[in-house]
């Protein structure tokens, strides 16, 4: 199966239209695709108690369902969801009189370091903007790439376990992981 890094937005628009039409499977697909990464995105962007992060994550999804008719397919769905999340975070900060976290979303120096061939310095990995960017980048990837990368590197699955999770042979899973890593590095530097 060939997987393009960026699917046409018309597919995202079609998925959104199915949700508007009341299609439960479409909503589940949308949710399964982005629920975890969107939570991580909000978690890293907001320096707040976990309960508040969970609240904002839930509000973002409810707002997404309420306003999905306004999604026109001009950007990818995950970009639209991240934009809703940013608004919710800004509202939260305004209500509590906090300074809203301002992130330079695509600092060229960070992208250069991440895409380079040297081991990453620890201070890069502790930066909230980098962590938030990782979550956003994972949302930009095709489903199989995202699932494979999270299973392998966040959940600590072996290649064999990833193969079983995705119902693939060991070799196919190895190859998929290799392509997923390359796609992740490329997508990290792209405008999202």
């Amino acid at each position, binding site marked *: 199966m060939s997987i393009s890094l960026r699917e046409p937005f018309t597919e995202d628009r079609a998925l959104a239209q199915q*949700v*508007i*039409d*009341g299609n*439960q499977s479409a*909503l*589940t697909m949308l*949710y399964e695709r982005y*629920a*975890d*990464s969107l*939570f*991580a995105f909000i*978690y*890293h962007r907001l320096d707040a108690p*976990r309960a508040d992060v*969970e609240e904002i*994550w*839930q509000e973002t*999804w*409810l707002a997404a*369902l*309420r*306003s*999905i*008719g*306004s999604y*026109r397919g001009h950007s990818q769905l995950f970009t639209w969801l991240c934009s809703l999340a940013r608004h919710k975070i800004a509202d939260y900060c305004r209500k509590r009189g906090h300074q809203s976290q301002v992130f330079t979303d695509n600092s060229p120096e960070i992208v250069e370091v*991440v895409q380079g*061939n*040297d*081991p*990453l310095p620890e201070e890069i*990995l*502790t930066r909230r903007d*980098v*962590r*938030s*960017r*990782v*979550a956003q*980048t*994972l949302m930009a990837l095709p489903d199989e790439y995202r699932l494979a*990368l*999270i299973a*392998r*590197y*966040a959940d600590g699955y072996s290649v064999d376990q990833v193969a079983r999770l995705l119902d693939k042979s060991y070799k196919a899973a190895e190859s998929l992981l290799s392509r997923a*890593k390359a796609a*992740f*590095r490329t997508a*990290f530097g792209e405008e999202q």
Partner: protein
Amino acid sequence: VDHSDEVLESNTARLIQSGMGGEARLDSDLREALHRRLISELHAGLALPAFPEKALGLLTALGLLAVLSTLVQFSQAGMRAFENGFWPMLILLLLLNLMLIPVASIVIVLQRRSHDRKS
């Protein structure tokens, strides 16, 4: 496996752990609960269709045509004040446009009802 592959493997692992590991992971009960709630909201018709921009645009265009044709009729009927007076003409335009708001609202309500019936 050469050195650059090892570095790439390690960098990717560390990046993804930093972004998706530990506290950034979603609680599975909360995940399930929101999924159920969204499904229930979907059935309750929370997902609204797009704002009917085209329909409203058409209505506005029709309104403007109505205004223009009214002015022409007034003019032909000899009501010269509407030709020469700026303010009466502006008030007339505003009033006629305001009259379109209830019409637009009815269109929106009908569209929402039709959507509710579908879902």
